[in-house]
């Protein structure tokens, strides 16, 4: 899959997305590009259309008009599971894990590996051994240190729980991982752990869309920063060319890059 992608060809692209909520214009012709292997941060003030953009890209809502392309192909999502089937995984800030279930069960939640043959397809019997094995290998690849894959998620810290969600998305994403404020519910140290993990996800070649209000985190992590303002993409900057306060100034309209 990766070979097909020219470095100059976006993996994931949107053209002139528009979304109205009654009289409110949430997206007013937003463009968007994500290139192979990069971490693209999306920032913007409240009401800039940041979450609407992310929801459109993850299939949680359908734009009124505009086009979305994945690997150059025009696509249409009618639900988040549509996007998932296209290899686009989303991590939410709400720690979407089942606390009483163990780590490998959470990794395969809703996508359980079943045994081969009729027992798997008709009786939906689980292949626990294989799930445990695959989960263990995957966590090792991500350098995610965990005592035991069979401990309940409720025994983990908040950062580790979000780590499980990040690892899950990386395991199943073929094309893109979307991280919607993954550290918003976490403390400083816990956030650091998750950031580290996001680095490891990118190191495996997956492009990441990273939404955050935390500017130092954005400047530390992102290769490029998409700045959303009043329903439009107002600028795309590189964190080494602009300071954090420049970024905030562009975001609030105090500075114009064009």
């Amino acid at each position: 899959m990766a070979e097909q992608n020219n470095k100059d060809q976006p993996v994931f692209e949107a053209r002139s997305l528009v979304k109205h909520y009654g009289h409110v214009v949430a997206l007013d012709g937003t463009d968007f590009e994500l290139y192979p292997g990069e971490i693209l941060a999306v920032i913007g003030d409240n009401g800039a259309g940041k979450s609407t953009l992310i929801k459109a890209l993850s299939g949680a809502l359908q734009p009124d008009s505009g086009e979305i392309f994945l690997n150059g192909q025009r696509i249409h999502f009618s639900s988040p599971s549509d996007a998932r089937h296209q290899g686009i995984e989303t991590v939410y800030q709400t720690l979407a894990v089942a606390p009483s279930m163990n780590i490998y069960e959470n990794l395969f939640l809703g996508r359980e590996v079943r045994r081969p043959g009729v027992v798997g397809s008709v009786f939906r019997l689980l292949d626990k051994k294989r799930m445990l094995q695959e989960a263990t290998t995957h966590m090792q690849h991500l350098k995610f240190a965990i005592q035991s894959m069979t401990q309940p998620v409720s025994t983990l810290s908040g950062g580790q729980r979000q780590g499980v969600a990040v690892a899950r998305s990386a395991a199943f994403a073929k094309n893109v991982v979307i991280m919607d404020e993954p550290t918003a519910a976490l403390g400083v140290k816990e956030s650091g752990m998750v950031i580290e993990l996001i680095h490891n996800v990118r190191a495996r070649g997956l492009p990441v869309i990273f939404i955050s209000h935390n500017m130092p985190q954005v400047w530390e992590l992102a290769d490029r920063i998409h700045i959303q303002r009043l329903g439009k993409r107002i600028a795309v900057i590189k964190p080494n060319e602009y300071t954090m306060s420049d970024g905030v100034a562009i975001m609030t309209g105090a500075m114009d890059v064009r």
Partner: protein
Amino acid sequence: MATLTKKEFSLNSIVIPVRRLISIPSIGPFLALLVAGAFFYTQNERFIQPTNFSLILQQTSWIAALAIGQTLVILTGGIDLSNGLVMALGTVIMTKMAVVNGVDPVLAIVMGFVVIMAFGLLNGLLVTQLKLPPFIVTLGTLNIAFALTRLYSTATITGLPPIQRIFGERVDLLGTSFTYGSLFVFVLYAVMWFVLRETAFGRHVYAVGDDREAARLMGIPVNRVLVQVYVLAGFFYAIGGWLLIGRIGSGDPNAGQTANLDSITAVVIGGTSLFGGRGNMLGTLVGALIVGVFINGLQITGVDPLFQRLITGVLVILAVTFDQAVSKKAR
């Protein structure tokens, strides 16, 4: 030095196995069952006799079948108050159709199953489509089922064809005679224990009760799972009804009036969390046996039956307190 290491060693050798033992699910209820059994044995030696054991199983079997359905519902974070009276409606349909209306007895049983499972479907649809709390939905269907039962028959239906009483038939096992019904219940528990542990459906039932939003975000069809659970629960209530008419040999419109609370008691004593997502079938089986042992034990020792209710009440509160403490820690 030598004594110190020895001391450490002996402490660990006690603490670790004990901790491991406690962490085995449903060990608590199982110990309670053993203690209760031992107590009743000291009061009356007849308690431990195989024939009495067989009697306990007979008395418990239909409640135990209802408790399977109740466990499924409670695992999803719901509760089913309607099960006893819906079952009663089903048993009256099964028996009256066969005895009074001359329907083929097996077909009559099928009709009872259909009605009971239709109530499950109704409960499931009201919970998922109208987003009503299961407590209220099943309180409503409880009253509907009660009224329909009375409208259909106020008389007890007797003279049942043999096939309808099949679960009351006896078979000799290890020198004691057991009813088919009490043995069949163990098969049901084994099957559902396996289904919950080893199938994708089972995992989804737990996930829906554990964190519904997480389950939805991960693409589990939450509403479909819930409807399946209520209908499947209805299937076990219908089996419970069939077991009951086998045991009492008639269709009784007054049956099952406290069965909802008895089945909830069995589930809760068995360690399944009322918050959903935690618990298992083995625990419920032990919980149902505890309820059965208390009823039988207090009868046999001639203690006022009110003590049975008193002790059951205490056990329920203990079980829920324990569960609350555990789930606070978990979240």
